């Protein structure tokens, strides 16, 4: 079912103007983003305190994928395959998840300024994760699950709080989110502050975003994130309609309540999973989808996968910077995302006024 006619109309200046999303445009954008991710992945794995030859790195990466044995020193193998690669993959997975969750919340709330951190959902997830650390510390799998539950409860709470008589008022929702975020963050900080010594350090480092900390949970987190992204992607077309108006979407055939519930759950799953391993990282969900929309339009069939790839690339880059710029110390990754994200957010606010 390829198009038999052009969907790019030339303007008088001879420049093609975007009319709608086509399969070709999708393929082009995703290919470019994928290549970017691959390059950044190689860069991330190459940079570090021990220098390892690029050829060796590539050999190890290929071996990890193909499962075959490889002829490199055990040290290099350890550094690359057990430390840098998992960390890089974690950054990609978390970045992809946060970006897609942001895109989903923006569509659901019909507001480009929504993101899981602003809505307090990340803090709810963090609270869940901390509860799991305190009560089920010996069971690492409990953290993403508890974080998911925390994220879901917070979503339901913020959503209910944000309802006005006219139904969804997205301004009210965001306000509810900001307030809930403030409340939950303070509870989180209280709990962290009262945690015992060594425990406290590791909890703080998790909270502010540590990609290298919990690589054992990588497969589970990757699973949750990919599941969440897949569910949201299946609903991409419905979200396109919901993004404009719920009433119109309903009249046009969207099962509005079912789609909303499904996507909210999927977004909470993603947020919970990412928070469980990397704390509450802000701004990724806000700026990545927005940047993608600027380039490619709002069609979620593009925005969801593009945000996933761009979010992965962004966090990969941010993590690389975070661990090299003041080496051997590490900057919290939330600092990098905020330093980039906050000015972008301010610019967005200014542009839309």
């Amino acid at each position, binding site marked *: *079912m390829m198009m038999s006619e052009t969907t790019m*109309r030339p303007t008088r200046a001879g420049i093609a103007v975007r009319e709608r999303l086509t399969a070709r445009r999708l393929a082009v954008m995703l290919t470019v983003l994928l290549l970017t991710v691959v390059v950044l992945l190689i860069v991330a794995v190459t940079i570090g305190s021990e220098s390892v030859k690029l050829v060796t790195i590539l050999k190890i990466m290929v071996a990890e994928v193909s499962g075959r044995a490889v002829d490199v020193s055990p040290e290099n193998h350890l550094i690359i395959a057990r430390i840098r690669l998992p960390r890089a993959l974690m950054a990609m997975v978390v970045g992809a998840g946060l970006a897609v969750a942001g895109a989903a919340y923006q569509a659901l709330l019909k507001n*480009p300024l929504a993101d899981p951190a602003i809505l307090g959902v990340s803090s709810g997830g963090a609270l869940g994760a901390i509860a799991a650390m305190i009560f089920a510390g010996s069971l690492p799998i409990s953290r993403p699950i508890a974080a998911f539950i925390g994220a879901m409860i917070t979503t339901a709470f913020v959503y209910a709080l944000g309802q006005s008589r006219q139904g969804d008022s997205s301004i009210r929702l965001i306000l509810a989110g900001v307030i809930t975020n403030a409340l939950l963050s303070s509870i989180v900080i209280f709990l962290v502050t009262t945690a015992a010594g060594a425990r406290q350090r590791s909890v703080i480092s998790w909270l502010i975003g540590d990609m290298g900390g919990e690589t054992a949970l990588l497969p589970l987190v990757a699973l949750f994130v990919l599941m969440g992204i897949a569910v949201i992607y299946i609903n991409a077309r419905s979200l396109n309609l919901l993004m404009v*108006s719920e009433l*119109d979407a*309903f009249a046009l055939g*969207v099962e509005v309540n079912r789609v909303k519930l499904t996507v909210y759950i999927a977004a909470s799953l993603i947020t919970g999973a990412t928070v469980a391993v990397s704390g509450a990282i802000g701004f990724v969900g806000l700026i990545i989808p927005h940047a993608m929309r600027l380039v490619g339009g*709002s069609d979620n069939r593009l925005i969801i996968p593009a945000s996933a790839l761009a979010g992965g690339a962004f966090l990969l880059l941010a993590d690389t910077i975070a661990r090299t710029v003041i080496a051997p110390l590490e900057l919290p990754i939330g600092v990098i995302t905020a330093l980039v994200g906050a000015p972008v957010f301010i610019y967005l606010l200014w542009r839309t006024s």
Partner: protein
Amino acid sequence: MLEVSDIRFNYAGPVLKGLTFAVRDGELLALLGPNGAGKSTLVKLIVGILRPASGKLLLDDRDLRALSRREAARLIGYVAQESVVMFPLTALEYVLQGRFAQGRLIGFESDEDLREARRVMELTETAEFASRRVQELSGGERQRVMLARALVAQPRLLVLDEPVANLDIAHQVKMLELVKQLTDGGEMSAIVVTHELNLAAEFASSVLLMKAGEITAHGLPRDVMTECHLRDVFNAPLIVDTNPASGAPRVTIARS
């Protein structure tokens, strides 16, 4: 084609108190009445946004309440109040959204979807905006794009809730002329909720006059839009004479 039987709806009290009427193929029915009469409620019940407390709604002898969302969307096109679009969306993308119920849930628009979109955009004189963002269009242009989106799935029934509210008189006339053209073909009927009494009189093939959740009168414009009926329903000093050009009833105010 549309049969409404004893429809009742409540919201902190009775809003619709047992309405019964029918709309035939090719009819353009104007729904008139003061604010609070229940016009928008009735329309939302037909579209399926609200569910009646009791009563039946049949479209082509099919119970509307038994239809899935997608089936209902293929049969009924709805143009309501405008909502602000917060994301970059072109007019073509907006119109293509009207094909949602036609297509598969996952995948891109088919050639047929595109053909139909271009067709209705030519019809509504919105083809030139195809690549422009919806937010950049004027109120009148946006209204026409909304109509295009409702038409693109070739519905059996078009429901318009105050479609001309934001348009200047020229555009109001154009839009209603277009709807009239489409219904005259016999394939589609339309229900238009409007406050523009004279436009209703000119373009509607039948009028339903409502007051406080009940039907006051239903029939031809000249039978329904009498001084007696209108003064009673609108509680305003209205006089009705005849449009010299068309012979349709013409409503004016008599201030004393």
